């Protein structure tokens, strides 16, 4: 059973290159809504997440909403175990499949095929397992013979297609998504959509950060509204979006 529990979790970033209380810091306070403090060593500290208490259970499809800098990506990275909480506790049972940056490990000088192998290895697959998936990835990307060419010769749309095809070639348990839906032509978007739907269906827990209301309404059954690193609302999608938009008006 996949489950995630967060108990009064804080994430605080020390900022080492802001040396003193300055105009910059005052500006930060205005821009982020008062998150910036100072620690004992007079390092500036940015609280990215404050006192987060949450539980995600099997079958949850959660949409993350909030303004830029509200802590969506930080929360996803916390769940991906990249950041460890500075305070509080986090408990995750289940395997995490992060899709935070689909371009991860895409190397321009290498061919499409080589990139598939690199990414597969990064995800912990053996050469054999990658070979088994190679055909599916190649088909989804729709790049054909271009896969044998260096990625630097690709158009930006083609790069997205390759990255997307590689990144989605997983069997997710707990799926974390950060704004994956990118560019691509209409025909590819259609296929990408189907692939995403099947991925979402396979996953036991989905947590998806996006700025698109449509995506949240379509894919999620719950929404988590973050504001300045705090949970503003967690519950049904419609209510969350309502609060979110009321705030921005």
């Amino acid at each position, binding site marked *: 059973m996949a489950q995630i529990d967060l108990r009064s979790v804080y994430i*605080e*970033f*020390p900022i*080492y290159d802001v040396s003193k209380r300055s105009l910059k810091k005052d500006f930060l306070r205005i821009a982020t809504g008062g998150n910036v403090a100072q*620690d*004992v060593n007079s390092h500036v*500290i940015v609280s990215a997440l404050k006192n987060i208490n949450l539980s995600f259970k099997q079958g949850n499809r959660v949409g993350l909403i909030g303004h830029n800098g509200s802590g969506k990506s930080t929360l996803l*990275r916390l769940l*991906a*175990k*990249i*950041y*460890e*909480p*500075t*305070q*509080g*506790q986090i408990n995750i049972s289940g395997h*995490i499949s*992060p899709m*935070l*940056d689909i371009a*991860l*490990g895409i*190397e321009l*000088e*290498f061919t499409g095929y080589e990139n598939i*192998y*690199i990414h597969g*290895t*990064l995800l*912990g697959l*053996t050469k054999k397992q990658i070979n088994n998936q190679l055909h599916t990835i190649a088909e989804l990307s729709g790049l054909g013979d271009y896969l044998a060419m260096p990625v630097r010769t690709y158009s930006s749309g083609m790069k997205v297609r390759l990255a997307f095809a590689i990144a989605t070639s997983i069997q997710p348990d707990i799926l974390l998504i950060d704004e994956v839906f990118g560019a691509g032509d209409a025909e590819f978007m259609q296929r990408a959509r189907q692939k995403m739907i099947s991925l979402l269906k396979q996953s036991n827990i989905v947590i998806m950060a996006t700025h698109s209301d449509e995506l949240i309404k379509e894919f999620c059954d719950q929404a988590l509204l973050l504001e300045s690193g705090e949970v503003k609302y967690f519950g049904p999608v419609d209510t969350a979006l309502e609060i979110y938009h009321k705030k921005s008006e």
Partner: protein
Amino acid sequence: MSTKQEVIHSISETTMDIMIPVASQKQLAFEDFTDGIKKWRIWLLLAYQDIKLRYRRSILGPFWITMSMAITVYSMGYLYGHLFHIPIQEYFPYLIAGMLGWSLLSTTVTELVDTFSLSQVMLKQIKLPYSLYVHRITAKNMIIFFHNLLVMIPLIFFQTNIKMDWHLLLLLPGLLFIYVNAICYGIVLAMIGARYRDIPQIIKSFITVIFFVTPIMWKLDILPPDKQLIVLLNPFYSFIELLRGPLIGYTPHVLNFIIVSAITCIGMVLCYVLFSAHRARIIYWL
């Protein structure tokens, strides 16, 4: 009074450090080590990729490493052999083997300091053991070392007094020692380098100095006996001896093995202590 100070101290600790018990931090650090070894597929691939990437589209490919090494050592060897009045047959093998060892050590150290700061994009996108990145750099430099070994081949035809015999087997423990040390000290250096960005610059400028104070271009016995102790205290000398001896056909002195073993033990302890104390903070330093 003292209790009050302790309270203040513990409050400041909680804002900076993790509230998880110490034992579990040690366990997590240990898991990072073992995970790093288990994921050899990843770091070996990344190491190989780093080398391949640098020489992509060039005709010689990775053998450019060998070429530039050959040009350096042979031109240096010719000139300095005359400068120090040592017969070329004797000086070439000594210098070349020493330079091979030195280039392995120096590039490993200078690159290890930047390990975490240069891998920050990856560190922030995917959860992989920290030690994996250190393995990546070390493995890459080991592969380059093996490329460089080809520089030795002309020596066989030069009528030098180089012996390619069973001594070569001693290269294995030497490389093993260097690998283990690179991992232990690499983690420490990479952590310091990520936290204090001036340290990599300091280390990079010191490494040039170490080159001149270590017997690589010059031989230990031209130094007066009472000054030789200074060299023996230089750990780089022992590490280089461990490679140079086997390459040109003599057994390194037992003292070199003892010094290297001692350094390895210190490194392991240092790495374990520092890594378990600060592992969770590394990502926040980037």
